[in-house]
């Protein structure tokens, strides 16, 4: 039901948004709330279509996803109205993707989400460059091709596509899964498949970048873990080496690249790539009982904070023309509320406690220690401490420098509501870990 409601709302919204964006937003938000209700009732897709399965962790992830998209809907302006419909389609596709229980649906829905993301980055052209959108499209197309190749190979080895029936000892399985993962790594922006992301995230409309880097990446992360879980625990030695290696190079390279950037959106883009690196640690540690909690926690924390920072940046870009770090000087005088939200979410990204970013890291990294990868975790923690350098550098510009000019802006009501929702999520999951653990562990 949730799926149908979201798709129907997505088709309905474009009728209204040209004339009256308020009605469009209301329809979208009520669709999100209604679909949350049906997910709660256990009628999202499971009862209606075959090939889907749902557990309490998936449900929690879906609630978080819908809440985040509702928060984004609140903060959009008329200029970004096409995003409303796209977000509704994205929500429908993501719910199906998260609930899918076989590889065929996984591949198809992965494509659907990819296509929505191309539209997302490409259709608002104003002061943003088309280059990022083109790069996202071409990299995405390559990734799709690679995944299809892997899937084709995989289909030789198996008689059933269901996750639980995965024939992990088949002839081509290792190669097939490796190729599929290579394609998925494009979407997860794992180094060295990250090249497109730094440009795409920083050059498209920042609200769209928030959805692309925050929402879609979290969803892909969680669904991929679910899909390949059986594989990961069957070949612990191979997966530990591969994922630990990619985790380390991704976070290290991205953090060092972020240190050099002057464009604020580029810093956030590289920070997003670094976070993919941290999120790979539960994959390496799949045999730990905490790996599932870790990946769920990371996806939840990341969706809130990453979406929030890009939405704030979107406001700042639109109202104050903020592009470079220099433009942030003395922001606390010009936009005090924005500054406060921005600072808290950046601290969360940096992993400062009482915010979701810390507990997510604490749980996800503990999974690594649990299987004996304490040295990988030490590298990851030192990386996240290094990352504090550029987050604090942004905060330094906001609070410790004097402004160049004195235009002041106030936050719009929609933005305020959206940011409050995201902040509530960041703080709630930063203090109370019980929900995530109840959903994943008995």
């Amino acid at each position, binding site marked *: 039901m949730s799926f149908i409601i979201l798709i129907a709302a997505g088709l309905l919204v474009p009728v209204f948004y040209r004339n009256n964006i308020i009605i469009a937003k209301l329809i979208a938000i009520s669709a999100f709330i209604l679909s949350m209700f049906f997910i709660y009732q256990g009628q999202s897709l499971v009862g209606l279509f075959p090939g889907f399965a749902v557990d309490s962790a998936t449900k929690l992830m879906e609630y978080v996803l819908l809440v985040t998209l509702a928060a984004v809907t609140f903060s959009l302006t008329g200029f970004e109205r096409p995003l409303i419909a796209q977000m509704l389609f994205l929500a429908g596709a993501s719910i199906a993707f998260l609930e899918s229980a076989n590889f065929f649906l996984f591949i198809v829905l992965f494509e659907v989400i990819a296509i929505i993301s191309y539209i997302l980055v490409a259709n608002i052209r104003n002061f943003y460059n088309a280059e990022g959108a083109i790069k996202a499209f071409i990299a995405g197309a390559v990734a799709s091709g690679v995944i299809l190749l892997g899937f084709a190979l995989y289909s030789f080895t198996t008689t059933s596509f269901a996750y639980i029936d995965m024939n992990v000892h088949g002839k081509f399985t290792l190669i097939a899964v490796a190729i599929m993962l290579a394609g998925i790594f494009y979407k997860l922006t794992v180094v060295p498949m990250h090249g497109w992301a730094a440009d795409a995230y920083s050059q498209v409309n920042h609200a769209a970048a928030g959805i692309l880097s925050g929402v879609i990446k979290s969803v892909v992360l969680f669904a991929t873990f679910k899909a390949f879980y059986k594989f990961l625990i069957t070949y612990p030695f191979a997966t530990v080496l591969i994922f630990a290696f990619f985790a380390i190079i991704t976070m290290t390279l991205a953090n060092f690249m972020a240190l050099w950037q002057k464009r604020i959106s580029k810093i956030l883009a590289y920070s997003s790539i670094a976070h993919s690196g941290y999120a790979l640690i539960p994959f390496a540690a799949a045999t730990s009982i905490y790996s599932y909690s870790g990946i769920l926690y990371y996806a939840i924390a990341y969706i809130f904070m990453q979406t929030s920072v890009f939405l704030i940046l979107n406001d700042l870009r639109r109202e104050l023309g903020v592009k470079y770090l220099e433009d942030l000087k003395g922001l606390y005088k010009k936009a005090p509320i924005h500054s406060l939200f921005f600072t808290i979410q950046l601290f969360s990204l940096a992993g400062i406690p009482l915010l979701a970013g810390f507990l997510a890291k604490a749980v996800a990294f503990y999974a690594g220690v649990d299987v004996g990868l304490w040295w990988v975790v*030490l590298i990851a*923690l030192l990386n996240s401490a290094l990352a504090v350098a550029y987050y*604090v*550098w942004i905060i330094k510009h906001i609070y410790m420098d004097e402004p160049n000019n004195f235009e002041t802006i106030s936050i719009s009501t929609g933005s305020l509501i959206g940011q409050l929702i995201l902040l509530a999520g960041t703080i709630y999951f930063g203090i109370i870990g019980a929900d995530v*653990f109840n959903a994943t562990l008995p």
Partner: protein
Amino acid sequence: MVAVDIIFAPIVFSALVYFFTRGAEQFAKYIALGWFIVLFIIALSWYHQLPEDGWLFLGNYLSVPQFGFELTLQIDALSVAMLLLTAALLILVVFTSWNEKKQGAYFSLLIMFSGPIFGVFMTTNVLWFFMFWELTLVPMLFLVGIWGEENRIYAAIKFFLYTHVFAMFMFVGFYLLYKQTGYWDLTLIKETALVTPALIWWLMFIGFAAKLPVFPFHTWLPDAHVQAPSSISVLLAGVLLKMGAYGLIRFTVELMPITTMHFAPWMLGFGLATTFFAGFLAIYERHIKKMVAYSSISHMGLVVVAISTMTYDGLSAALYEMIGHALVISPLFLIAGWLHHKTHTWYMDEMGGIMKKAPYASAIFILAGMAALGLPGTMGFVGELTIIISAVKAYGWWIAVIALAGLISAGYIIWSVRRAIHGPMSPVVEKADFSMSLPEKFALAVYAFLIVYFGVNPQPIFDLANQAFSWLGGM
């Protein structure tokens, strides 16, 4: 319910204070003062409720049974000593920053700081301990970075990054503790035998050593202490460094006594190196606040020496010296900062003859200085004497070389008094106006009183120490 509120309420409360006092900023300090007095009274009431030995249980919150993650609040005599010290210093800090700029934000950050710092000393859950430990950095970053001196931003970011990076080593140590024992709670971990304690010990030691700071990890401190406003230097020296010593006692001595015994010579080595290295640097320094900062490091080195003895005497001496160091170094920092504020120079040889123009501040500077070098009748004497005695008992007569530390302190203190306070009056001092506000005078008087009071009557602190370390076989 009180216990968990006094940790979380200030964090929420600080934002409210900031927004509600925007029109009338001068009220913020009264709110802060009131709140810190309440904290002091609560800490005092816990002091009276403490059981003979063991823990006073304050509550369990936010439980996640699957991960052993739970905000367990319980305190013993050591925590209460730290809580009382913290609350007292916070109250005095309000007086010494009475006329600070941008008061609304300043005092809201101080209120915010009071939450996590209480949490650090109150919780026995290791993960929550780490969370509060990290959280204390955030208000400090802003307090140093916004209200500090010329190089404040460099110092603030260096302080934040440095302590954050070294805390990560500690965090891996905590992870390994949980992996091997299955508990995050200190009191439960203590009852479990550990398999690879050496790695855990070193990871945690590095984390605490950077905070303390111990010699090779100390470079953040001179920058942070010099660039911070004087009142914040007081908090850094009086409270944040104590977190390191507290952690060292709690996590190495109490948690893994056998491993600590094994590595005690290393700890002793680090402690001695810190004491002498920082002492010699202090002699060399012309910069008055840097001199005080190095003297602070040097005294913390003595604390490490005392902790490394692992005896009842040694730990009692360490606790006494921790409190003594906080009370002695604070007026030195305050007066150093105040002198810079009035004379606009940092260098002692450009000052001179301050005694004639500012006798009150000079007298307290000399008193605190004498306490730092260990003059009988002050806290410094009792602290250094007990540390030397306990070290000689534990390691033999040769360790009496640490008495030279007292000699080195005499070197830098007396020389700086000679250069800055006495001597011919320099033109800088001639021009300066040395008026001091009443709250500042009051706070300095309180420090002077406490230094002498506990110097003459050290028994209350040793009673607390007796309660805290009776498990080591005290009297």
